[in-house]
């Protein structure tokens, strides 16, 4: 039996499927690339500056300078916002990319006309391209010229694009329900099966294992560690705030060191959990994409191996960053690059499939 893209509905242009698939992969790649650059150039220096600000605040408390203490905390707040918005931009680009590719795979079941589906895809992709850069800009734009006391223009752009994405997804859900259960269901002739390609099976197996590992890890973390971390963190902050004024500067420094270690430990554990699950999701998603990757089977298999290796190494390296420091960080960045290269190769295959479809005089 032939398991080319045609078996799974093909990749015609003009009905939103191809645009969502290519746009989604580009969003995933942009999110990953940004995450790698962020990890190399911003994450570690920023963490050191955050602890530096807290140290300055504790020093100001020791010398009885309330204004300087509050000022140091304001600086720390800015650094935390800088880190938070970059993590958010990275995560939102990835998740929107996943959603775009999922919507592409669902298009044969959405009972709207080709034109409507293309129109929805354009709106989705336009909003998805605006949202992550807007989140990124929140730290830099701040509240400049904003009519609101708490929310700046960059946040408003991100929220508006989020609203568009919600409306488009709602329209896709309505089309899907109409296609599956409503009076238009007779129009939907596509079937949904797992591609019978070895690469798809490998990705499905690997993705499921990663998700199981990520779920169990997350459950252990949430059940046994989260509350302990939070209690320890608050205790250390109490000590950092009160010890300098009591003249216990050595104890305050020890509390600061422990607080920094705690932040690192907690951050790396959460990042490991998040990356295990992200790569599990990515592997499942790419399992269904393989029929549209128009490459020779041996090359499809090679890129799947590169992706699986990178996706295995990265969370392990992130989890061991507290023990092996920057070496583990470097390994994690290289593993991230392996995943990026593999997904880029698959995108190249999808583009080739589009060209093959058009050259063969396919619909659209």
């Amino acid at each position, binding site marked *: 039996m032939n398991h080319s893209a045609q078996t799974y509905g093909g990749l015609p242009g003009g009905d939103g499927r191809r645009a969502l698939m290519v746009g989604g992969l580009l969003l995933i790649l942009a999110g990953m690339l940004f995450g790698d650059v962020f990890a190399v150039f911003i994450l570690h220096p920023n963490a050191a500056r955050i602890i530096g600000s807290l140290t300055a605040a504790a020093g100001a*408390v020791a010398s009885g*300078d309330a204004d300087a203490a509050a000022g140091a905390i*304001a600086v720390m707040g800015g650094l935390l916002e800088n880190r938070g918005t970059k993590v958010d931009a990275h995560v939102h680009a990835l998740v929107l990319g996943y959603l775009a590719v999922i919507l592409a795979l669902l298009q044969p079941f959405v009972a709207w006309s080709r034109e409507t589906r293309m129109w929805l895809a354009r709106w989705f992709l336009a909003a998805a391209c605006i949202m992550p850069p807007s989140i990124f800009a929140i730290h830099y734009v701040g509240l400049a010229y904003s009519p609101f006391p708490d929310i700046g223009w960059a946040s408003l752009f991100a929220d508006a694009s989020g609203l568009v994405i919600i409306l488009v997804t709602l329209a896709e859900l309505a089309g899907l329900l109409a296609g599956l259960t409503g009076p238009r269901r007779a129009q939907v002739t596509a079937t949904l099966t797992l591609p019978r390609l070895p690469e798809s099976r490998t990705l499905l197996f690997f993705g*499921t294992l990663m998700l199981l590992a990520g779920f169990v890890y997350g459950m252990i973390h949430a059940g046994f560690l989260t509350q302990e971390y939070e209690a320890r963190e608050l205790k250390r902050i109490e000590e950092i705030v009160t010890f300098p004024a009591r003249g216990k500067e050595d104890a305050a420094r020890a509390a600061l060191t422990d607080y920094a270690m705690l932040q690192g430990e907690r951050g790396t554990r959460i990042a490991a959990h998040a990356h295990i699950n992200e790569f599990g999701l990515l592997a499942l998603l790419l399992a269904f994409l393989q029929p549209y990757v128009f490459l020779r089977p041996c090359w499809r298999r090679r890129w799947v191996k590169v992706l699986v290796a990178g996706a295995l190494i990265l969370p392990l390296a992130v989890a061991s960053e507290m023990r092996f420091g920057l070496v583990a960080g470097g390994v994690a960045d290289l593993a991230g690059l392996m995943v990026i290269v593999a997904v880029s190769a698959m995108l190249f295959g999808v583009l080739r499939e589009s060209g093959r479809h058009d050259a063969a005089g396919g619909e659209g």
Partner: protein
Amino acid sequence: MKRGQQLLIAGGLALTLLGMSFGLWYALYDEHQTLGAMGASLASAMGLAAEGDEAAALKAVEAFGNYRFEYVRDVHAHSHWGSLGLLLILLGFAGAESRYRESALAALALLLLYGAFAFPLGVMLQPLQAGVMARVLSISGALCLVTGLFAWAWGLLPATGGRGE
């Protein structure tokens, strides 16, 4: 398409929408205010400690802890609803190959849907002093998710082990 697949795909998309809608509401009405309050309470704690008012400084640290507790859980609910929704859709895609009968697959889909909805909801309710209710939701939700995923993987084992063509 099997009923279990339909439930997972439509339910997953609905859950993703819930996650996005909660995220939008949260970003507009709560997030910036909570982050501002967190920063202000920590700055106030430092200022009060510098002025020698330790009792008031500790109260400000407690307020910071409460804001942080709420913030972490709200962000958790937003991100988990969104990601679990996407996961359910993908599990629905693969459901055609499952070894389970149609009724068993539909029951498994309901179990996963309950888990994916209840776990983030329980975590989100923790700061609202919902006590037992929040714990029941989050623990039962997490258990349903993990059990459901293991059962789903077991049902799919023959398909992943196939040699393909």
